[in-house]
């Protein structure tokens, strides 16, 4: 078997654990799994030192520390969290429970990896919470993490794991429904690689690139996303979907304001920075509540736009703190602001429009609390996922790091009874043929052109305000775009990345549109112009989608409730907190 494989592949690797994606989550998982004595291989599309959404820096760690945190286990177990008007936020509450339960352990683990968890005075800097009555509780940490990725990269190198940078996963390998590794391609050399693994872990980031970036860019410059584009093509979602795993909530994507100038950099930290929220204004200076999509539309009709975010009410001290946050998270923002003559003390940030963005937090790969990828109600053997791409609260640095560390702790036990993986050679051949095809296409189309067309379909036919006719027309047009995949050419292996990303985006756009066709209601920021009311029968339910025996399955599901023992824990904690509150 191996002889045949080496004839097809330029490189064959056998390993216990294959980690796909070396972002925050992937690096944490790899370092910990090595510490636990496993043979680990990491493949990363870019380079672990600066890859992923944390590549340019991070300014806060939203760790949701329980007990001392604003988010208590009671909140985790609270029905409102999942049956809210936005649809189902957490398809499996047990995942959230496990993350919350171990935050102080994660704090220690990250420190052990060399990540600075403390502020300048050597103590953790708890972000002040801007609401009265919660001051006693701790939310997240302000951190100086410009270099979190080089630090984690060093930890991974020190661990002795096998690292393959500039190596992009093509597809998962399956045998009898189990996942037994993956195929990959080196995007600089075109080398085709097969990795045979007992456990395959996915932390490839979010899906953003079905919609335009938050900072609109002119002409061919299309990548000014808030999150790193390399980790926003939804590669992991597509890999899981094609291997028979479920994606959930693919109709409920996030939405955001597009910010006119590229000064979104520390956007996340604006309100968190110092516990002082920003203010929102109409163009003529009227202070307003941050609008939702319906209200924003009204403001447009009333001639009140553009609207702005402002920090001009900040104290001098808060402005200084904001500057530190900018430096921690995205140094380039200083340069951009300075060159434009933009000063947040006197200028306000223009919000361009409210528009759909990425698929994360609520949407993505369906997992259980052991990070196993689910197919219907059953886990797929050998396949795990966490981080930004998994649905149900494993996103953000805290979610990604915690997911990776927890799973790596479980792996030795999981792998103990696992058989040696068997590879189906015909799958390997097929993957190779797919991945290297554009190298042979002469005078074809550039991947970026096809990607723009896919995005155009989502913007125009799905967008914020949906209807049956538009969705069906979008689906039809998407179908005809598929032929273009074979016309893409790669002048060098570099372009294989864009080509494979287009392949993934095409699949995911289809999943997205089909889910939107099924949800015939208006709820939260999900708008169907032809179904303007909430459909009560959809309360507390969500869609999952997968491929089974070549057929697309879409199912309506209910969230997996908190396990009784977890619920008991939450009740005990609530009682303890009440006693502490009464005493203070």
């Amino acid at each position, binding site marked *: 078997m191996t002889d045949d494989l080496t004839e097809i592949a330029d490189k064959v690797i056998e390993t216990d654990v294959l980690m796909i994606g070396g972002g925050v989550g992937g690096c944490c998982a790899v370092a910990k799994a090595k510490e636990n004595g496993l043979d680990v291989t990491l493949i990363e599309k870019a*380079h672990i030192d600066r890859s992923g959404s944390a*590549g*340019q820096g991070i300014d806060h760690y939203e760790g949701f520390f329980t007990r001392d945190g604003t988010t208590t286990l009671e909140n985790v177990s609270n029905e409102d969290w999942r049956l809210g008007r936005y649809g189902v936020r957490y398809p499996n509450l047990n995942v959230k429970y496990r993350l919350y339960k171990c935050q102080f352990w994660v704090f220690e683990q990250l420190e052990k990896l060399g990540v600075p968890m403390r502020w300048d005075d050597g103590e953790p800097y708890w972000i002040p919470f801007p609401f009265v009555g919660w001051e006693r509780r701790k939310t997240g940490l302000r951190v100086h993490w410009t270099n979190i990725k080089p630090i984690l990269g060093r930890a991974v190198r020190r661990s002795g794991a096998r690292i393959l940078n500039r190596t992009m996963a093509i597809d998962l390998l399956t045998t009898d429904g189990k996942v037994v590794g993956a195929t990959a391609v080196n995007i600089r050399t075109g080398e085709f690689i097969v990795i045979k693994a007992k456990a395959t872990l996915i932390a490839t980031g979010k899906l953003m690139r079905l919609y335009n970036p938050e900072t609109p860019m002119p*002409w061919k410059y299309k990548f*000014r996303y808030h999150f790193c*584009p390399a980790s926003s093509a939804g590669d992991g979602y597509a890999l899981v979907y094609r291997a028979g795993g479920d994606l959930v909530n693919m109709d409920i994507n996030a939405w955001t304001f597009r910010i006119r100038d590229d000064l979104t950099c520390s956007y996340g930290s604006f309100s968190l920075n110092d516990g002082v929220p920003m203010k929102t204004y109409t163009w003529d200076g009227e202070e307003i509540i941050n609008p939702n999509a319906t209200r924003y539309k009204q403001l447009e009709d009333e001639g009140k736009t553009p609207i702005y975010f402002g920090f001009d009410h900040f104290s001098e001290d808060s402005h200084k703190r904001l500057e530190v946050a900018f430096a921690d998270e995205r140094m380039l923002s200083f340069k951009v602001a300075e*060159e*434009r003559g933009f000063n947040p003390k006197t200028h306000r940030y223009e919000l361009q429009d409210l528009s759909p963005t990425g698929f994360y937090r609520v949407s993505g790969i369906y997992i259980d609390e052991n990070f196993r990828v689910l197919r219907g109600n059953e886990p797929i053997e050998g396949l795990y996922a966490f981080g930004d791409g998994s649905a149900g609260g494993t996103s953000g640095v805290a979610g990604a790091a915690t997911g990776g560390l927890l799973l790596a702790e479980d792996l030795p036990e999981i792998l103990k009874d696992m058989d040696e993986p068997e590879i189906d050679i015909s799958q390997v051949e097929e993957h190779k043929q797919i991945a290297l095809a554009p190298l042979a296409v002469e005078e074809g189309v550039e991947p*970026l052109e096809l990607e723009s067309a896919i995005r155009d379909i989502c913007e125009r036919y799905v967008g914020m305000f949906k209807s049956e006719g538009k969705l069906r027309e979008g689906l039809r047009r998407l179908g005809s775009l598929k032929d273009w995949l074979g016309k893409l050419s790669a002048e060098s292996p570099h372009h294989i990345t864009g080509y494979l990303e287009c392949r993934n985006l095409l699949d995911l756009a289809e999943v997205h549109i089909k889910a939107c066709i099924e949800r015939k209601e208006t709820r939260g920021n999900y708008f169907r112009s032809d179904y303007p009311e909430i459909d009560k029968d959809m309360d507390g339910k969500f869609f999952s989608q997968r491929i089974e025996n070549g057929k697309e399955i879409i199912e309506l599901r209910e969230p997996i409730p908190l396990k009784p023992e977890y619920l008991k824990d939450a009740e005990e904690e609530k009682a303890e907190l009440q006693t502490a509150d009464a005493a203070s």
Partner: protein
Amino acid sequence: MYIKIDMATCDGCKICYNVCPQDVFTWNEETKKPKVSYEEECWFCGICWMDCPERGINITYPVSIS
């Protein structure tokens, strides 16, 4: 050109070429210096600019987002 390398300042350390998350740079074996080859894929993260030990990279923005 929105990503500009000052070839006189660059000492060929390869850091930008190694770390750029979008693989914007290629390596010129003759000059032993980086080359900006896929600029339209840049996401303006600023990583090359901040990690270049020689401060040899300058980033400006495309015209219509000023």
